């Protein structure tokens, strides 16, 4: 019985992951693909890759923050520098951000745990959505 429940739990988790990944792919195509490219490989010297990126694979807090706030610091990413700025995407919902990060962490050769809406919400805090950046869907 315990084994059966465990099996159901595993199935539910995997199913949830693939559902999140599928939703996240739609967000990626609309919001991220133009810079990070269809293969998650980025653009040399301009837009960093997401494929096998140490930042994407390890620290959830970091990548959630980047999506919420954007990024304009000149810091090395896996020993390379990238020149373009990334605008804030705080107009996306917690679920959309969780889904797209889950997609990115499980695509392009990446394999990692899902990001949840609760994790995004915790980092976003009580910050209001920027109304000037609300996109028509």
């Amino acid at each position, binding site marked *: 019985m315990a084994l059966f429940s465990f099996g159901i739990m595993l199935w539910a988790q995997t199913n949830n992951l693939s559902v999140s990944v599928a939703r996240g792919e739609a967000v990626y195509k609309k919001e991220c*693909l*133009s810079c990070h490219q*269809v*293969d998650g*490989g980025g653009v040399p010297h301009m837009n960093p890759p997401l494929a096998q990126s140490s930042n994407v694979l390890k620290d959830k807090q970091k990548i959630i923050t980047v999506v919420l706030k954007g990024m304009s610091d000149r810091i090395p990413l896996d020993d390379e520098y990238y*020149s373009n*700025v990334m605008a*804030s995407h705080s107009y996306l919902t917690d679920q959309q951000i969780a889904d797209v990060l889950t997609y990115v962490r499980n695509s392009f050769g990446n394999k990692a745990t899902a990001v949840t809406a609760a994790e995004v919400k915790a980092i976003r805090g009580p910050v209001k959505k920027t109304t000037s950046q609300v*996109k028509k869907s």
Partner: protein
Amino acid sequence: MQTKKIPMKKVFSFLSISFLFAVPCLANPYADTINAGLSLPKGFEASKVSDGIGRIRHLLVTPEGVIYARTSRLYKGNGILKMTAQNGDGKIDKVEGFSNYTGTGIALKDGYLYASSDDEVFRYKLNAKNEVIDAEHPEKIITGLWNKRQHESKSIALDNNGNIYVNIGAPSNSCQEVDRGNGSKGRMPCPILDSAGGIWMFKADKLNQSYAQGVRYATGLRNVVGLDWNTQSNSLFVMQHGRDNLLQDWPQYFDAEQSAELPSECMYELKKGDNAGWPYIYYNQILHKKMLAPEYGGDGKTESPRAKDFIEPVVAFPGHLAPNGLLFYTGNMFPEKYRNGAFIAFHGSWNRAPMPQEGYYVVFVPFKNGKPSGKWEVFANGFSGVKVVNATRQAEHRPCGLAQGPDGSLYVSDDNKGTIYRITYSGK
């Protein structure tokens, strides 16, 4: 005399042993595939003279046939490479380096080698054989230029009047309040233009010049990586990298196809005081109009009310090709049609996504009397190594710099793999 029939076993052993010796030749990285994998017009050939050394940006070839090249990542601690082919087969076999700064710009004029970092310009005195006399002690002629990550490279060109022209690219896509932000308005007036987004002119022989000592020669140019002094027209020609993100930031006005084709990558001929219009306009090469940028109230259909204030492009190419090199050909090796015409190295697009990418080739524009005399054509193709580039990283080589050899051959550099190609004409 009786000829013996050679037993098959012996023939087979001989062939397999020969093959074992041949395989290392096949593995030789300098063994040329046909034309180094490039497709060229009839009569032209290409070979690789260097590969895998540095990430080569701009380069030049001295009258002695020596290459000076810039690298965007220090090669054994050096940002300027001096490359020599000693053994007579044209392949580089000696690489020396100096300078501890990376950068794009390089030029040779009146006994000096000029080179730029991302915020300064230096010059190195040369001896009669165009060798750097003291690599450790260049003169710093320009300093303090804006360097804020985006469009940071400082390409240079010199005229025949003692002036040096420096690109100061705008650290911005379209001068928005929020850079690359969806729907973010443009700043009015654009405060960047006082210090960037244009070409600045300085003296080629004065030390420690900065903005106060220079002249803003031309403005309204988002970022210029390829530029060259045209000795026929005695004027500066530049290639502008047009703005990105029409679809991403203004989806209500542009669809994916329009955003991939627009705006035009423009060639401009510059006179002092010219204004090319960035960020207020972008050029639409299909309508042949200077359009009001969406950041400033445009909707993709409206021409700029200030169109008369801004210069016309000389040639308008499709969008996002990324022109990184411009060279007016003055050699005698290529057929007459190429004399005084323009070669352009298109680095290749990324912002066309989700549509397929374009570029990754060298283009030729014929010129007569300082003006284009015909349509542009792809001259050298195949740098990407794939039929279609969908993601930029798929491209193996990306053309960046152009140089003319003393014999009139054309050199093309790639800043992905550091490959340097030499294109020659034999007529065969």
